């Protein structure tokens, strides 16, 4: 903290008093000898960045700079001021690398361990989303610890910075990990648009309606920022076992006919191919008719259409095991075209492969 006991002495022994600062703000290398480099209040007054991480850095480094300057440690004050300024302007300074600092042998191991853990969190998008503010605070305490360890003569200050860092990192470990109990919306798939989920717990409700919107449940009930890669990891086993979405094929028939056209046969081949690509495939064939003629005849012809299609698919899959077939006839029910006239669209067989 007190790198130079008094400003006069410090100014007299400039070269030996402080290690050179490597911090930069844009292209500008701060000159800690200038009055500007020690002028902290304007930095404190810059509007806080929206990012909780950068805001924590700005706040924390301003505080450190003021403490150093109050003790007439001009170079450390300038160093932390320039870090606060960088954060306020949207560029996060990296934490001090202990291997690049002049740190006594006895203090280095603990700092390297902390540096590795802290930079791990800084590089984790998910941890930064959930614990950005706390990671910023931890970085400030850590840099304070490095600074004091480098000076090496004020044990109380070293301990205070280290303990503050350690308390914060314990909190971060908890916040950064995904909670044990949680729910998340996955991206929509064709035909299954995102409608969202509603979580209800103890009279409270959370609605999630976009891909990768998540919430903790149970003790951690509340919105939860997550990244796609975290979710893909956390649910890797279940995602890999997710069955393929069911697929539908449609064939149309001539008026009063049950003959399978070349075009309809293409759909049969495609449905068979789809069934072949699935484990324990189910082929569900449903026949329909248009609304011309009497209902009993329509039902009969829709049944014949469905049965012909089933037989054709069955033949294509004759060497495939573990396939189940079902047929259904709807006759004039569920027309796709609302007309009592002849309708090719209504004369159809739908094959659902699941």
């Amino acid at each position, binding site marked *: 903290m007190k790198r130079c006991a008094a400003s006069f002495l410090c100014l007299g022994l400039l070269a030996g008093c402080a290690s050179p600062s490597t911090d930069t703000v844009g292209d500008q290398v701060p000159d800690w000898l200038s009055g500007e480099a020690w002028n902290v209040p304007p930095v404190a007054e810059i509007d806080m960045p929206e990012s909780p991480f950068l805001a924590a850095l700005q706040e924390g480094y301003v505080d450190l700079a003021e403490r150093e300057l109050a003790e007439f440690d001009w170079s450390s004050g300038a160093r932390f001021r320039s870090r606060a300024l960088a954060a306020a302007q949207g560029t996060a300074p990296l934490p001090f690398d202990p291997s690049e600092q002049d740190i006594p042998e006895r203090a280095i191991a603990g700092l390297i361990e902390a540096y590795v853990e802290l930079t791990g969190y800084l590089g984790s998008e998910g941890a930064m989303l959930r614990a950005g503010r706390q990671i910023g605070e931890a970085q400030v305490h850590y840099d304070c610890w490095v600074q004091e360890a480098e000076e090496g003569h004020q044990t109380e200050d070293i301990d205070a910075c280290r303990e503050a860092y350690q308390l914060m990192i314990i909190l971060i470990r908890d916040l950064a990990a995904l909670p044990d*109990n949680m729910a998340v919306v996955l991206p929509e*798939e064709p035909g299954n648009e995102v*409608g969202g*989920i509603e979580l209800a717990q103890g009279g409270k409700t959370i609605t999630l309606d976009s891909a990768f919107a998540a919430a903790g449940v*149970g003790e951690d009930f509340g919105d939860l920022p997550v990244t796609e890669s975290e979710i893909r990891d956390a*649910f890797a*086993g*279940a995602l890999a*076992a997710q069955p393929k*979405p069911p697929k539908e094929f449609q064939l149309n028939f001539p008026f009063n006919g049950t003959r399978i056209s070349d075009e309809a046969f293409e759909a049969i081949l495609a449905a068979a191919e789809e069934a072949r690509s699935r484990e324990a495939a189910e082929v569900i064939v449903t026949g329909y008719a248009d609304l011309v003629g009497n209902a009993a005849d329509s039902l009969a012809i829709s049944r014949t259409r469905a049965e012909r299609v089933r037989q054709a698919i069955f033949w294509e899959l004759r060497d495939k095991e573990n396939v189940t077939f079902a047929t259904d006839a709807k006759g004039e029910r569920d027309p796709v075209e609302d007309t009592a006239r002849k309708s090719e669209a209504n004369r159809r067989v739908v094959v659902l492969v699941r």
Partner: protein
Amino acid sequence: MQKLLVNFVAVLGILFSIQHAAAADQIGQIKVASGDVVIERNGTEIEAKSGEALFEKDVIRTGENSAVGMTFTDNSRVSLGPDSKLSLETYAYSRPGKPNSFDARLDRGSLTAASGKIAKSRPLAMRVLMPTTVLGVKGTVVAARVGGQEG
């Protein structure tokens, strides 16, 4: 002899009706099963293989490094990751006089669920019941977990 024949026909009839009732109540099917996956049904355990039928009230359990994928008659799909337990508590789809509903209870582990026609038929008809929380599926693909990291 005639009595014997009558009995035989009666037994056949009963067998047929049991089979028919069971077939009518099938709600889904196991599609993918890897590792240690069992279905608990009426107090017995059945090894869950691809193609195995699923019924209302079945409980599906996966072991370590295991997973299972299921489809249901409304085209919804549910999969479980390792160390999971899911109970198919309520399932009604296109049953006369009964509203569509699908309630599955996730006691532990991880799940993904893609909604089908039940979820589309009315709001919150498909739900995943978690120990402290009810997850209502409005019509989408979701993932949920109870009890932490995948093992």
